[in-house]
């Protein structure tokens, strides 16, 4: 470690002759952490002993599974913009974090995971609960490090937080051997503000910004696709100013959702596999495509061979490795979105693009008639997922944080949920982790106690971390849980229907009585099976000051449309 000198600030916290375990607590406090999620076990017990002593300043939330601790830390980070922290023991405790790490890595979520490890002298001996978590977590972390001596703790913890939150954020894992937790040393903490081998934010290139501006100014049909980079860069205001000045229709990726209010006139909806019709089709008709803080995921682009081939492409991103990774671009604007959008604002012209905007409106009307009306105002007897999401919008005045899991309900929720504020949609986008929503909602609620947090989950994903009802009960966390139950793994079933001739291999679920289960955890619960009960039930749920569980029995074999079939072009988006 000698060679990795971190540049230090002058403010130093010191404490003489304390244990490594206590030092870890001081590091967390110095980083402003007041809440962490975790699960104790042998190799992390010295730290838990200190958590017991420091419980007045550092709240530990006991989840019922380490995976849930990681997802809760993600939910907390996504809603608050702060670093989420999860802690677990060695071996299975550590491996259970891996899905959360992978999810945070692909969705750029700043979390720090701390794991206990067997004492240094037992490393490599296949000791009880020993696992090579550094080796295992390397591909799914932004950085990881194994501490084997107490004296390493301050510098490594400072680096961990700095790396997790700077630049393009991501997960960091710090593995700490038990001897390093027990040993005493003279503690001194300085926050990290730079690492010589790491350049988190590229300096904006004025020439690139000017080239981008002149392309934008001469565009007849410019189109913006924005992603989570706007949210992670706290660039919502700069983004809004930019689109309002240029008058450019703007669509979002699933992780960009809520960066721009749903009712903003320039918000034209979602791109991607189940995105809106207009944004997908018109991607192949725009003349300049401006991608902001997004990464051209395959679920966004469909077939790359026929993606926006007619357009000049400008890509704003903080991560140089994203430039020309999936889509070849004409202009790359590297840097923090807040800074680059701020810089380009003066260089772009005031425009309206009314005729071009009309094309989005026209496409929206087509989609409304073919899909949206049937989803949101259905006339058939069975309840639709879309009408449930609409009822939640109405009852919460579009002010709720909506946490979704993965599958049909996720696509429907992201299509129809409406947002006034940024950092309000929390979902597992890149990894598609079923089981994400319930623990992430716990973390989100704890990160935004003043906000309504509604988890919308399918009956499949709900059962992947259903044990977290206990965490909700124990902490009296007033999250609202809506399970859209179609007794199917709906998205897989939809693909089986469309592409596997209705061979429903292992997608039908024989489910338990979810209301009774919630009641078993002393959570108020209600089931809706009829349309006329829906609004009242949703209002009752939103009104409640306690945790609340609502099961809605929805149509069993509904499909989510529009849909770009896997491997097809964005132009070939299907309305049915």
């Amino acid at each position, binding site marked *: 470690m*000698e*060679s990795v000198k971190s*540049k230090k600030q002058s403010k130093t916290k010191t404490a003489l002759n304390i244990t490594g375990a206590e030092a870890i607590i001081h590091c967390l406090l110095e980083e402003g952490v007041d809440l962490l999620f975790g699960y104790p076990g042998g190799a992390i017990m010295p730290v838990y002993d200190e958590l017991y002593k420091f419980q007045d300043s550092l709240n530990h939330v006991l989840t019922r599974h380490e995976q849930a601790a990681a997802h809760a830390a993600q939910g907390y980070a996504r809603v608050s913009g702060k670093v989420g922290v999860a802690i677990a023991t060695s071996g299975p405790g550590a491996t259970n974090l891996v899905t959360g790490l992978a999810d945070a890595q692909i969705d750029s979520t700043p979390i720090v995971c701390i794991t206990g490890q067997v004492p240094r002298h037992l490393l490599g001996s296949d000791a009880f609960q020993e696992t090579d978590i550094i080796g295992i977590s390397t*591909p799914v972390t932004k950085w*990881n490090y194994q501490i084997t001596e107490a004296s390493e703790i301050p510098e490594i913890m400072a680096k961990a937080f700095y790396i997790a939150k700077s630049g393009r954020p991501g997960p960091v894992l710090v593995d700490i051997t038990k001897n390093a937790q027990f040993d005493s040393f003279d503690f001194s903490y300085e926050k990290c503000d730079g690492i*010589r*081998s*790491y350049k988190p934010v590229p300096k904006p290139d004025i020439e690139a910004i000017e080239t981008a501006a002149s392309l934008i100014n001469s565009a007849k049909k410019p189109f913006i696709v924005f992603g989570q980079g706007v949210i992670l860069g706290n660039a919502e205001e700069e983004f809004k100013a930019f689109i309002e000045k240029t008058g450019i229709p703007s669509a979002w990726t699933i992780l960009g959702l809520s960066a721009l209010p749903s009712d903003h006139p320039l918000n034209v909806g979602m791109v991607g596999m189940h995105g809106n019709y207009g944004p997908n089709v018109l991607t192949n008709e725009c003349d300049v495509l401006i991608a902001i803080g997004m990464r051209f995921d395959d679920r966004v682009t469909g077939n790359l061979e026929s993606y926006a081939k007619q357009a000049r492409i400008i890509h704003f991103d903080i991560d140089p*490795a994203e430039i020309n990774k999936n889509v070849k671009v004409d202009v790359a604007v590297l840097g923090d979105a807040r800074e680059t959008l701020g810089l380009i604002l003066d260089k772009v012209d005031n425009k309206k693009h009314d005729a071009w905007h009309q094309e989005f409106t026209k496409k929206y009307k087509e989609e409304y008639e073919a899909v949206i009306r049937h989803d949101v105002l259905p006339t058939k007897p069975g309840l639709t997922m879309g009408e449930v999401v609409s009822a939640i919008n109405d009852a919460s005045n579009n002010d709720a944080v909506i946490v979704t899991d993965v599958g049909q309900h996720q696509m429907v929720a992201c299509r129809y949920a409406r947002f006034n504020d940024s950092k309000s949609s929390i979902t597992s986008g890149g990894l598609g982790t079923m089981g994400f929503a319930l623990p992430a909602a716990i973390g989100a609620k704890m990160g935004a106690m003043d906000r309504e947090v509604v988890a919308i989950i399918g009956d499949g994903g709900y059962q992947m971390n259903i044990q977290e009802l206990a965490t909700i009960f124990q902490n009296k966390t007033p999250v609202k849980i809506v399970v859209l139950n179609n007794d199917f793994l709906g998205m897989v079933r939809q693909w089986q229907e469309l592409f596997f001739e209705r061979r429903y291999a292992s997608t039908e679920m024989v489910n338990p009585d979810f209301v009774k289960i919630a009641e078993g955890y002393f959570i108020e619960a209600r089931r809706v099976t009829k349309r006329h009960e829906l609004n009242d039930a949703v209002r009752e749920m939103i009104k409640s000051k306690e945790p609340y569980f609502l099961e809605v029995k929805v149509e069993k074999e509904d499909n989510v449309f529009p849909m770009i079939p896997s491997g097809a072009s964005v132009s070939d988006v299907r309305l049915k």
Partner: protein
Amino acid sequence: MEEQRYTISIYSENNIGLLNRISGIFLKRHINIESLNVSKSEIENISKFTIVIISTEEWARKIVGQIEKQIEVIKAYYHTDEETIFQQTALFKIASHLLFDERQIQNIIKESNAQIVTVSRDFFVLAKSGRRFEIDEMHEKLKPYGIMQFVRSARLAVSKAEMPISKMLQEFYQDK
């Protein structure tokens, strides 16, 4: 796009686990590492990885982008064979009696500019540095007589163009 040999040069901190992190980038993309060398570099306390892959230029560029993203990597480059000066070294262990029984072996040693590293009663060791094909040629010539052991090092390469690592590090310290 055409596949060809690329030499990837990485300047990094010398930390445990970085090799794993870098090799994982190739693993994730199902790309075979043809050769890999890690040593100190011209800069104190900075390591240099030299990795050879066969790929398209597009993949070489993307891989270098992913490598540079790693926290402890200072800078990475990719170069074609024409853009680098490179060598490998091989060791041949051969039975000593052949040196006297097979006169041709002495000619092979002379012609190929190989060095005799050691001679013992039972075996002698030849070292040959050069291009891969030169080592291969020598291997082919010696093979009929019996090679007890053979090993060839990874490619060592320096680029013709400058790799301004010291300057980059200076900039970091100046910014602070």
